[in-house]
């Protein structure tokens, strides 16, 4: 299982990676700090899952998802954000995101989301 974390905050990427590895010790975690880098890593490594911040300096998470789809990279995609309206959440889900998790989230909320994605 390869999971790509895309967030301009190293602190958030590290925190989320620790939580994932606590649940999925064998997961391979990749990091990218913006959308451009995220697309490059996704092209090269074809992750199973991408977990992305919504607001990043170059593009937003929804644009990132659209770009991945345009490149034919089929990946399970989730968003983390502190800034979402019902409309933007709907837009993300319609574009193919499988979850939009509000920040701050508890460790249990993230684990529950991951368990739903990876029940085994």
């Amino acid at each position, binding site marked *: 299982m390869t999971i790509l974390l895309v967030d301009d*905050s*190293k*602190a*958030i990427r*590290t*925190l989320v990676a*620790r939580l994932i590895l606590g649940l999925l010790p064998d997961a391979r975690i990749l990091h990218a700090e913006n959308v451009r880098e995220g697309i490059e890593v996704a092209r090269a490594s074809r992750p199973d899952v991408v977990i992305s911040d919504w*607001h990043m*300096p170059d593009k937003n998470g929804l644009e990132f998802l659209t770009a991945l789809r345009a490149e034919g990279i089929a990946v399970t995609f989730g968003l983390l*954000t*502190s*800034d*979402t*309206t019902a409309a933007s959440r709907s837009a993300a889900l319609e574009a193919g995101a499988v979850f939009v998790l509000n*920040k*701050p*989230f*508890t*460790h249990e909320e993230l684990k529950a989301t991951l368990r739903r994605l990876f029940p085994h």
Partner: protein
Amino acid sequence: MQFAEIEICQFAGELWEMVLGLEIRRRSGASAILGRVLVGAVTIEGAWRGQVVFECPEDLARLAASIMLGERPADVSERDASDAVRELTNITAGNLKSILPGPCTLGVPDVTAGSFAPDEVLTRIAFDCGGATFAISLTGPRPMQDPARSM
């Protein structure tokens, strides 16, 4: 009462507990922030224009970063401390946006070292975290209506 006092206290308490596992409490009285301070700011544009500002002493920023990174505070770099302040500012602003008149958009958070001396403080609330004082402020015009939670 300052604008959105209750909501700011609630958001801040949830954020520090959920992300950092740290308990905070509102400070009454003097709210000077001692030592070197990192100031995170996010601009909000749209139906309401202003800023969300997070003033954090550097030692507390290092503690926050150390928790997020799983490192000892002494091993946290200045860049990582700024990164933690940037992210905490961003999350705080994202949550506060939900109670401000909309539609609004958030800018990219910026962190500087120094003091905070705004022209137009709408709300400023100081908190205590393990003996360290930090503050969250809203700057900008007072909205016509009290906060309306849309969450």
